[in-house]
């Protein structure tokens, strides 16, 4: 393996967004240009002017987060390129190291998420129960959330059933850029939660971002079935699937 592959692998492993342009046909077949989000990169297609041109197009695709095919006219040539875009994995932040969280981490891992479990209660948040999570943070979730750089690629689920843990975490989550926010609990529990959040100064619009009762209604009851329902909803929301009504 050469320097381009090594740099590419490193970016993928570190979750750094990266585009890799490859010439698919003609005399330059197989030549590559690696481009990072800041426009810097590695490799060459043989001519600096061409590199600049392709780097610009690859950076546009990278910013859009989509792999794509490019045709770049260059003198007498017309270059046929594929630009492969690799984005960091989505993150699932789980507030509450409860029983449901155990299969939830398993399923989220399989779906390619980076899993982070937060719970201040050391009896729940043990490495024995959560050795499969990417991160286990034994502190108050509401204190940790602001340190996690929550972005559109982050989903948050709140599972403790304990108002003094859940509500401050939710109050922070609804003002973050998180793509998905779900809270465990019945409609009755959620109604009570909404009242408390309002008292905390959270707006109706912010509260409406919380998906509760959490998960698609698959009729399941076991922790594993509920974990599937939660992941199914997260997948649907991330894919803008029609079955997930944003006004729910």
């Amino acid at each position, binding site marked *: 393996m050469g320097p381009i592959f090594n740099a590419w692998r490193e970016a*993928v492993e570190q979750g750094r967004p990266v585009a890799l342009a490859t010439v698919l046909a003609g005399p330059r077949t197989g030549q590559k240009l690696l481009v990072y989000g800041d426009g810097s990169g590695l490799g060459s297609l043989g001519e600096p002017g061409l590199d600049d041109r392709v780097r610009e197009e690859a950076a546009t695709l990278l910013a859009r987060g989509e792999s794509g*095919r490019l045709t770049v006219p260059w003198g007498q040539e017309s270059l046929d390129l594929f630009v*492969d875009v690799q984005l960091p994995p989505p993150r699932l932040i789980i507030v509450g190291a409860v029983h449901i969280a155990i299969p939830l981490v398993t399923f989220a891992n399989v779906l390619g998420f980076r899993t982070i479990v937060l719970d201040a209660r050391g009896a729940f948040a043990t490495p024995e129960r959560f050795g499969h999570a990417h991160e286990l943070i034994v502190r108050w979730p509401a204190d940790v959330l602001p340190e996690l750089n929550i972005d559109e690629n982050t989903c948050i689920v709140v599972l403790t059933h304990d108002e003094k843990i859940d509500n401050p975490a939710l109050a922070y989550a609804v003002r973050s850029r998180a793509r998905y926010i779900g809270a465990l609990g019945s409609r009755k529990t959620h109604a009570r939660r909404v009242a408390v959040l309002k008292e905390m100064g959270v707006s109706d619009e912010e509260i409406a971002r919380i998906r509760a009762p959490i998960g698609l209604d698959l009729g399941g009851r076991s922790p594993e079935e509920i974990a599937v329902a939660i992941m199914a909803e997260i997948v649907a929301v991330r894919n803008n699937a029609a079955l997930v009504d944003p006004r729910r």
Partner: protein
Amino acid sequence: MRELLPEIERWQREGKQVALATVVKVYGSAPRPLGAKMAISSAGEMAGSVSGGCVEGAVVEEALACLQQPPGAGRSRLVEYGISDELAMSVGLACGGTIQVFVEPLDW
């Protein structure tokens, strides 16, 4: 790509050559999106997928042929699979779509 890295690294440690196959064009409905990848070792092992399993066997053949060529120009190849390709009928995609796959040695 992330999920293929452990296999690729293992093959490397075992002294095997590695080829990479990437879906670079999708026409119609296809089971795997643009950018889907499969890695193939010179021993014929594979990781990942470029279709729902319809064309992987043919891609392994292409990859092995590519790795058998001496290093230098002409090892990479762009191949197309689908029902519209009569030559590829035996490995046509059941879903009716067509895909283009770029197969290359991982030597860069």
